[in-house]
């Protein structure tokens, strides 16, 4: 049911934080307040009056949140880092080329110029690319609250479509994407009806090989369930196997089990399963190819 939504945002208190600590204390002082990072998901929701936070805390003036750092070979992305900055960061690309591959699919450049990667993680759309990449790479977010900081691994962070385990008084100050293991191959594939739309299904893969055999596999998907998911059935079907066409075929079929999204306007459930299987075959083939090269 559509109510009296418009396209102009409702009133809110606009608060500018000058440090992470200030942002966190503003969060606890203003119940229901939301962090304004890139605003590329939040502002449309407010324009439609689907979201009406009493206060917004702008974190874009906090220099410490604007950096991409390589820490122990992992890519740590501050909460105010724009998608586009991460996409264009050569250091991040070197540590984990999956980031650039996936970011290419995130909306369009003008959106990536404003939208932040951490914001996208916190928004936690079940069809969004970057939450899936965080899960795929085994990454984590760092939450800051009144009582200090804690790391939340991706598989504990994304709970449901647009729902995370962040506490209301916590702010996610960074996300860390582990580097790609040495010699591993990677691939990312997505299908949406239009370029830049949320995925009907997207799959990422990280594979390692010993000779002709897959020694480790991480495969994850988004768009197919109420949150990004690891395709553990596919992984199990690959590990220890020689990479034959038949093995890829079998693994692809296993992906179908992960689809729990109901029929929607863009995809029936049966089609989504079929699509996911096809994309899964593609990323396995491509990742395995790259793994061999290294």
């Amino acid at each position, binding site marked *: *049911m*559509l*109510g*009296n*939504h*418009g*396209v*102009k*945002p*409702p*009133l809110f208190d606009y608060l500018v934080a000058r440090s992470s600590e200030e942002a966190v204390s503003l969060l606890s002082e203003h119940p229901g307040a939301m962090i304004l990072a890139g605003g590329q998901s939040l502002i449309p929701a407010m324009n*439609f*009056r689907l979201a009406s936070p009493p206060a917004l805390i702008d974190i874009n003036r906090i220099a410490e949140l604007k950096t991409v750092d390589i820490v122990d070979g992992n890519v740590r992305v501050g909460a105010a880092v724009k998608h586009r900055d991460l996409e264009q960061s050569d250091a991040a690309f070197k540590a984990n080329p999956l980031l650039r591959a996936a970011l290419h699919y995130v909306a369009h450049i003008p959106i990536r110029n404003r939208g932040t990667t951490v914001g996208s993680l916190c928004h936690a759309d079940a069809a969004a690319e970057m939450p899936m990449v965080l899960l795929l790479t085994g990454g984590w977010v760092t939450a800051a609250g009144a009582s200090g900081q804690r790391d939340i691994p991706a598989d504990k962070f994304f709970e449901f479509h647009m729902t995370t385990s962040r506490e209301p008084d916590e702010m996610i100050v960074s996300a860390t994407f582990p580097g790609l293991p040495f010699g591993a191959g990677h691939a990312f594939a997505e*299908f949406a*009806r*239009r*370029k*830049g*739309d949320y995925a*009907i299904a997207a799959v990422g893969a990280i594979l390692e090989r010993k000779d002709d055999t897959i020694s480790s596999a991480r495969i994850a998907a988004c768009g197919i369930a109420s949150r990004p998911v690891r395709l553990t059935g596919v992984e199990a079907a690959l590990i220890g196997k020689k990479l034959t066409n038949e093995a890829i075929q079998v693994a692809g079929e296993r992906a179908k089990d992960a689809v729990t999204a109901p029929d929607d*306007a*863009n*995809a*029936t459930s*049966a*089609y989504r399963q*079929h*699509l996911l*299987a*096809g*994309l899964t*075959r*593609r990323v396995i083939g491509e990742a395995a190819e790259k793994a061999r090269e290294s």
Partner: protein
Amino acid sequence: MSTRKFGAPIKRNIDPRLLTGKGAFTDDINLPGALHAAFVRSPFARARINGIDTSAAEKAEGVVAVYTCDNIGHLDIELPLLIPHPSMTNARTQRPLARDDVYYVGQTVAMVVAVDRYVAEDACALIDVDYDPLDVELDLERAIEDGAPLVHPTHPNNIAADFTQVSGNPEAAFAEAEHVTRIKVQVDRSTAAAMECRTVAARYDSVRGELTVWDGTQAPLGVRGGLASIFGFDEDKVRVIAPDVGGGFGQKVMFPYPDELLVPHAAIQLGRPVKYIEDRRENFIGSNQERTQIHEIELFAKKNGEVIALRDNFLHDTGAFIPYGIAVAQVASTSIAGPYRIPNIHVRFRAVYTPTVPVTPYRGCGRPQACFAIERAMDQLAEDLGIDRFEIRRRNLIRDEQFPYTREGLLFADGLRVQLDSGQYLKALSMAREAIGWDGFAAEQAAARQQGKAIGLGLAYYVEGTGLGPYEGGHIKIHPITGKVYVNTGLTSQGQGHDTVFAQIVSDQLGVKVEDVIVVEGDTGTFEWGVATFASRAAVVSGNAIHKTAIKVRQQTIKAAANMLEADPADIDLEDGHAVIAGTDRKVSLAAVATATNPLRYAFNSAAQAATQFAPASRHDGPPLIDGQHPGLEATDYFSPECATWAYGVHAAIVEVDRDTCAVEVKKYICIHDCGNMINPVIVDGQVMGGFAQGIGGALYERIEYDREGNPTNANFVDFLIPYATEVPAVEIAHLETPSPLNPLGVKGVGEAGCIAVGATLASGIEDALKPFGGTKFHQTPITPSMIFGAIFNA
């Protein structure tokens, strides 16, 4: 002689303004002190209203007025039925603000006027409307069954109109058929989605009693007529201006939308300018849409493929109201035989009320549906009889010598005969066949299939009745000081480039530069006769009116110049802004001629001295302006076509279906197109390519979705999938130019051409591609990946 501008790829006059951000769209016009309107809209598809509590909104800071049906006085009426037709009884139209009942999600219930749009939207949320929801039926076929919930209790089975047209003697021909092909097809609902939503701003001058309305409409003259009638004003006290308008595509020809009355009403009552800028979500739920039709079409043929009769029975979704009458369904029903001779036709439609946004024309207006029905049926007939798809068409096309080809008994949407006036239908088909590579395609397809690739060839032919009357006018005046030429017509432009093509027509007659011809349209204050921009009619109707007018002004100019140069009028040429004695360097500027033909008392510049009473050329032996003479160089004329002129074309495509993603890749798309003589081929191509992109949208992406309760579920640009550049394939266009015999310029319309055949072409191609891969029939658009998956895997 200057080179002829008609037919030349001239750059557009309007572009520098639009490219530098100097366009003046309605919301760009600065109206100091303007207030802003926002609407409360029904959240239910069908409900009784028990009460509306506006008290909290009225008290809100910044709110100036709140309107419901109870305080809008003479506006609390059912809005006009614009095009009455005998097939409708008691046709239902909506009220500006709902009284007692609402009939679709998005219907206007209350209007708030406030200091800005933000505050107005805040106040809308404070208005409490008490509804009792009623049962609804959204499915077109179930809506006509006995017992289905009624949109209007006045209309049993939800039938708004039931109309049959017959040409020839179909009953007799049915009996003679050796083969009958029957298919059922469906085209789903879409929307114009112009980049600028609808807009209205109004200012009332209470001293002069004059109402000025800026309206992003295709029909300012219509809006003026509506406002004057409903408000009881003299027409000359209402000025409606369509400034720059950001696309229309038919949605903006409908009037009056509720806001078009309520905003002027508020401006009059509040003594302040009032603006309403529709937002995108409102455009999806409050501005009219088009397309859903379900056709059951039968082709009665001889074994050799000759179609001797056609029967079509279709349902047309008209939404909750039918303000534009049966126009869309009537265009579909009279276009159903396409470019084929088919001498016997029986076509019946029923227009069905559904509790959804009302249906009025969107670019194509019934033609895409008719094309989809006949072309998919021709493909099926070809398959049934084992004849190839080009050949079956070749055997049925109207041959060159058969033009004009009249479908006796059918009346088009203008109430005039259906007469396909000219064309080279067979040549266009063979051009398409060659351009798409039909002859080598079977081998190419077989080779691709060997590799597991699903490629197919699609084909569809279309006709387009264009240039409908009743008439348009043209007014031309040569400015006495600058020599620039001012042109007015009753139309509006939403991007079509009228200002340039009309200037080209005038330039040829008056020998002035195209950029020195200034076309002003869309302002009832400058020209007040005419109809509107719709039905691919501007070039045909206004173009010819302006052409006729330009000839008159040319004659005046030559006569006056001959007089000034003491030469024979037959020796005068008009070129480069001058009247020249052919073969000499003796000439006089048009400005001087215009000045001299306007006897003056006062010389306000040096050029004007020539027209004052003691100037050498002035007469001293009688009145300066002789009896019956009009001062200056100026004329007005009109063009009223005897019937529509029919453009046509062929589309063909090579597509590949990715069986993993079920996505369609258009590998090659060609369009053979004939709109008669082209005034500006670049603009014609632009129209075709733009229509084509909308056709791609309708074929593969765009579908207005409602749930079972009648809630729109994709009323935004995130979920309603308009193609970006990445989704629109390249299209190769080739033209034929078969002049229309029905107008002096020999032109036909092009506005809607591009969109008509895309759905049928791609369906044809996808079906062909998937034939060996378990594919079935593609008899519905848009064709989504899920549908392709279902077709391949029977799921």
